[in-house]
């Protein structure tokens, strides 16, 4: 109960701050403002939890107390209190806008929208509620961080063989907000939903800024939101949907530099500049590949400015950004400085920490440019070069069309772009490139980001998950086609809307479940009470050894474990983070007595191993120890205990 109350208090505080930042950095485009509100909330919640976590105060009560103090401080300052008073006006304006907007949509689109939204809510809610986290990378490092931080009430590094816990982790900090207060991972998959909303609103905002009508822009939005690669990843507890949202929102904001219709943007060009800085830095602290996407964003901003304003006005506008900003009041400059400092902190913290602790800002990865390795590492890393571009492009061609495999959340051997993008999006994009000059500019930006990412993308079977933002560009082309189609004879509009509805429905059918489990597997999880749906109990994902430890190791005991650098650690914490764990390094040449001594030195009697996740040589060694009269005996499969 304390957790739930603390959660509500912290939600109120973070929402208030997100709204106040929006008041200062708002635009005259309602859809973009809504997307910015969600981004502000993610940004501030991450900043807040990171700050509390670094101070060792990552727990419900300290967060509730600081949130209460923060909310009282905001209410007691007259200017911020005044801004808060506009919330009701804001909500009323959105209500009126929505009613007008809804009334302007064609009837078939209203029906399609109701079905799409109802289906999406039901599907997301069911999958979040029914299944525990299950994606490989989440069980090795993303959620391992979250679990250890919650147990220790502190954001820090810890001893584990999984070196990827050192990766930039803004999304993991944000995900912590969904598990910290109830001390359970039951709804942690919901952490991807704000990114899904931002992605949709950004596509709508881009389409509107390109002059596409309301109905057609909404069709583009639905077309993108039905993309299987995105929908499957949203509740997959990884950070790719977050990166997608940040990229698309950056494109939408970058159009604001030159938007002629946008009065506020037009007068204060520093607003999109500051927002873009916040977006880029937050993204850098989420995943380093934003650096490869950035040239495309820059190209869109630059080319649109020239296209709309001309060379001379574009140059003048860039000068204006800083000139107009410098004329703002001290209060505005102070807040802008604070926002940029916060963004810099979120964007650099993880890299500076790794540099200080490990001597490599990109630890555990190497950095290779062409043939020369700038930073060395055992597990490989970022490669930049033409050879890599050639290799990844070949892989992309193989995956084009999703012919090789079923579309799954981490996109093995597939693009996950789906029926709408391939069926309607690609022909629409070719038509848009021929017919629409503004679309050519947008496409150039997306293409540049795509190529830059191919330059450095790993050649793994799962690398297309970094590209799930690209179908947004195809969806916007569909918006252009509908805009044109609505103006022509009725049957053309009818043919387009029938095809769109059919393909969207096929996209939705494709993602009913994760395409990874049999219905019986889902039923098996449903047969457990909500609080016992641990990743360790999900036998289709984790080997039997994980279910065995749940049955045989008491929650209050310290559990020793030995897995490889790519092994599942997260399930060992259990869903309610009640199990304390400690890593026991073992060499295959260690004697049984050495292993027992090592376990005792770490204060544990139990030792967990698992096939696939532990080296076979280590498993063989432990089995031998249990059979040759040492104090180590086997307790079910792959679990060992020191006899008393």
């Amino acid at each position, binding site marked *: 109960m304390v957790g739930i109350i603390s959660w509500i208090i912290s939600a109120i505080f973070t929402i208030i701050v997100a709204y106040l930042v929006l008041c200062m950095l708002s635009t005259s485009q309602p859809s973009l403002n809504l997307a910015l509100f969600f981004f502000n909330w993610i940004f501030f919640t991450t900043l807040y939890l990171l700050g509390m976590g670094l101070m060792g105060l990552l727990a419900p009560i300290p967060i509730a107390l600081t949130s209460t103090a923060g909310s009282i401080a905001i209410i007691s300052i007259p200017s911020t209190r005044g801004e808060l008073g506009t919330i009701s006006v804001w909500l009323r304006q959105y209500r009126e806008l929505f009613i007008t907007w809804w009334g302007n949509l064609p009837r078939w689109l209203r029906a399609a929208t109701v079905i799409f939204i109802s289906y999406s809510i039901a599907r997301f809610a069911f999958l979040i509620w029914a299944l525990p986290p299950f994606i490989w990378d989440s069980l090795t490092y993303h959620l391992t961080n979250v679990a250890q931080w919650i147990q220790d009430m502190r954001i820090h590094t810890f001893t584990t063989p999984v070196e990827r816990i050192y990766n930039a982790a803004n999304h993991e900090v944000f995900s912590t907000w969904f598990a910290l207060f109830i001390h359970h991972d039951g709804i942690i998959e919901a952490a991807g939903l704000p990114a899904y909303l931002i992605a949709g609103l950004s596509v709508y905002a881009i389409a509107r800024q390109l002059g596409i009508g309301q109905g057609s822009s909404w069709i583009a939005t639905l077309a993108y939101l039905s993309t299987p690669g995105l929908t499957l990843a949203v509740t997959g507890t990884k950070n790719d949907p977050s990166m997608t949202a940040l990229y698309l929102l950056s494109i939408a904001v970058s159009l604001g530099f030159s938007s002629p219709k946008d009065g506020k943007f037009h007068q204060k060009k520093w607003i999109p500049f500051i927002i873009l800085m916040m977006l880029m830095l937050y993204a850098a602290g989420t995943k380093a590949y934003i650096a490869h996407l950035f040239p495309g964003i820059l190209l869109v901003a630059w080319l649109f400015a020239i296209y709309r304003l001309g060379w001379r006005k574009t140059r003048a506008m860039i000068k204006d950004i800083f000139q107009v900003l410098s004329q703002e009041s001290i209060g505005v400059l102070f807040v802008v400085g604070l926002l940029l400092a916060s963004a810099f902190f979120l964007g650099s913290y993880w890299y500076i920490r790794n540099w200080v602790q490990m001597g490599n800002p990109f630890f555990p990865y190497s950095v290779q440019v062409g043939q020369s390795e700038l930073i060395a590492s055992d597990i490989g890393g970022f490669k930049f070069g033409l050879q890599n571009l050639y290799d990844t492009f070949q892989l992309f061609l193989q995956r084009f069309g999703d012919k090789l495999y079923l579309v799954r959340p981490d996109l093995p051997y597939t693009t996950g772009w789906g029926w709408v993008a391939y069926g*309607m999006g690609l022909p629409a994009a070719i038509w848009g490139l021929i017919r629409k000059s503004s679309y050519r500019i947008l496409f150039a930006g997306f293409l540049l980001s795509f190529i830059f990412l191919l330059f450095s993308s790993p050649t793994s079977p799962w690398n297309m998950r970094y590209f799930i933002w690209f179908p947004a560009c195809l969806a916007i082309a569909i918006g252009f086609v509908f805009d044109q189609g609505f103006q022509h004879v009725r049957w053309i509009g009818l043919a387009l809307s029938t095809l769109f509805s059919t393909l969207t429905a096929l996209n939705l*059918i*494709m993602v009913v*479940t994760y395409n990874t489990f049999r*219905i019986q597997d889902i039923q098996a999880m449903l047969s457990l009470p909500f609080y016992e749906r641990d990743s360790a109990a999900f036998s289709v994902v984790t080997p039997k050894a994980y279910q065995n430890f749940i049955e045989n190791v008491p929650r209050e005991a310290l559990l020793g474990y030995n897995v490889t650098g790519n092994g599942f650690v997260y399930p060992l914490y259990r869903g309610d983070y009640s199990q304390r764990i400690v890593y026991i390094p073992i060499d295959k040449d260690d004697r049984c007595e050495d292993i027992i001594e090592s376990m005792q030195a770490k204060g544990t009697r139990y030792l967990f191993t698992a096939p696939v996740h532990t080296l076979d040589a280590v498993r063989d060694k432990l089995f031998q120890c249990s059979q040759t009269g040492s104090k180590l005996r086997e307790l079910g499969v792959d679990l060992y205990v020191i006899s008393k």
Partner: protein
Amino acid sequence: MLSQSKTGSLELVVLILAMFGMTIWYAWPQIGYSMFIVYDLGLTYFPSFIDSMLKIFPLIR
């Protein structure tokens, strides 16, 4: 004006035909995958869901 509209319509007809063509190209093997999912849900999930519900009811006192 009329001829311009006709040109535009013809262009959109070609575009719609291209869309149908791409849809057919994408359909294999996706349609098979989707049918599998529908089959799995329709014929496996709902009957067994009802079955498990019927088994649960006697346990509720």
